[in-house]
């Protein structure tokens, strides 16, 4: 007799534990305002990205098409996987002195691990991390970017 009670007791107890779990899921089923799903491509306009988010390396330019990069090459040295290539050129300033200036700041997005070491290394804050995270492109060659805009110049007052 005892074994029979134990047997049925276990069955009923088992059902109760199953119902307890069902209660949790049912609560969320009937309270959909507790759900956290985001409709991503549709909510692009209202999407909030953290300001420190490390999406890609960018070089901000001001309205006169000037940047702060002095072609010192510290970001190239700091990069652990060779994502940054600095191609410099020689320019002559008004006093006739030869100076190093940036020709092309090449950034290989496909090789970048977003470790933030180049931004830490930069002495003039010429490069920063951008918030863009949608990096899909049709061709692999599009992932190699030149960060300084064509015809851009060094901002006045930036010293090495």
């Amino acid at each position, binding site marked *: 007799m005892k074994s029979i009670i134990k047997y049925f007791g276990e069955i009923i*107890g*088992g*059902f109760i*534990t*199953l119902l*307890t*779990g069902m*209660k*949790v*899921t049912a609560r969320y089923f009937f309270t959909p305002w507790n759900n*956290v799903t985001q409709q991503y491509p549709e909510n692009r306009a209202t999407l909030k990205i*953290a300001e*420190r*988010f*490390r999406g890609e390396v960018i070089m901000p330019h001001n309205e006169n098409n000037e940047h702060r990069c002095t072609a010192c090459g*510290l970001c190239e*040295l*700091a990069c*652990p996987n060779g994502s940054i290539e600095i191609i410099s050129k020689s320019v002559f300033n008004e006093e006739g002195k030869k100076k190093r200036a940036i020709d092309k700041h090449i950034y290989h997005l496909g090789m970048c*691990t*977003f*470790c*933030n*070491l180049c931004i*830490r*290394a930069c002495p003039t804050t010429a490069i920063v*991390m951008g918030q863009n995270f949608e990096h899909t492109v049709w061709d692999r060659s599009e992932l190699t970017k030149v960060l300084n805009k064509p015809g851009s110049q060094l901002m006045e007052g930036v010293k090495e």
Partner: protein
Amino acid sequence: MAEYKEVYLTSDEIKTDDYLVNMGPQHPSTHGVLRLLVKLEGEKVLNVQPHIGYIHSGIEKMTESLTYIQIPHLTDRMDYLAAHMNNEAVSLCVEKALQVEVPERAKYIRTIFDELQRIASHQLWWCAFGMDMGALTTFFYGLRDREDILDIFEETCGARLTLNYSIPGGVMFDIHPNFQRDVKAFIKKFRAKLPEYERLLTGNVIFRERTKGVGILSKEEAIAYGVTGPSGRASGFSCDIRKKQPYSAYPYVKFNEIMGTDGDTFTRYHLRILEMFESMDIIEQLIDNIPEGDYAVKMKGVTKLPEGEYYQRVETGRGEFGVYVISDGKKNPYRMKFRSPGFSNLFAINNIAKGWKIADLVAIMGTFDLVIPDIDR
């Protein structure tokens, strides 16, 4: 014409070969590219032989060509669920070698991040483990709560998974002004959510029947195989590095090392749930007391370690993680060895799973919380 003759064989005379099944590398329950060569008799497991190396990326060799500042970002990619602990281990090892004293603020931030990462790791483990056992709901609930932690990470250090936050000398950024408020809000929310986990899965009769008394790892075996972390502690092997060799801000906090005695699948499961409560206690002790000051000491661009050998271990979500550096005085390490918890834990599976059914093998493997890049490195 040959005479037809009937032949009867008794069971002793029939010779059979071993029935070998490859579980993985594409099997969903191995959580990555792990291959288990399983010897079966019907549904019974006779032998399990793990084959690893499918995602070997040569991280130990790669470190030999990087500077000490660059190395932490590679360790993110090993145990991606304990990225911050891995970073911290390398940072602590370099700091130990250089005898640099890290600011108190950095220590506190690191410890809070450790515990947040541990909760996030256990949440993902919980939801994947539920899915291994056939409960899909857990997967959504676990990921939902993990999202809050990842948002906190994103706000402070700009990355969600591969943080690269702890660097030799301190942490990379100061905490975000909203950090303390968000962490407190998360803990308040998650304290209410965690009992839900228990109701959903721990109490479930099907789950209990499948895990209680299954796959027992004795304390002796755990020590012999070097099974650390929650899996080792479930067998009664006291191995919490946070208690044994406190680092960062762990000497300042009071917490219990949660221990089990049975060493079965259920104990290993439940211990991790209890650890999440404990982690929240640790964060609550620290979050209001973050001291003012610098968040990092200024390090040189090229750091050279003095000649010698250095070892530092930390407690990750899976167990003991060690970094062993041999330096010859140059800017790159001569040799760097990582002692990963998953590697040691994995090879205890053969002893545990012998004699159990193949479905139990999935459950046993789930409770070891394997991260395959951590094993292969």
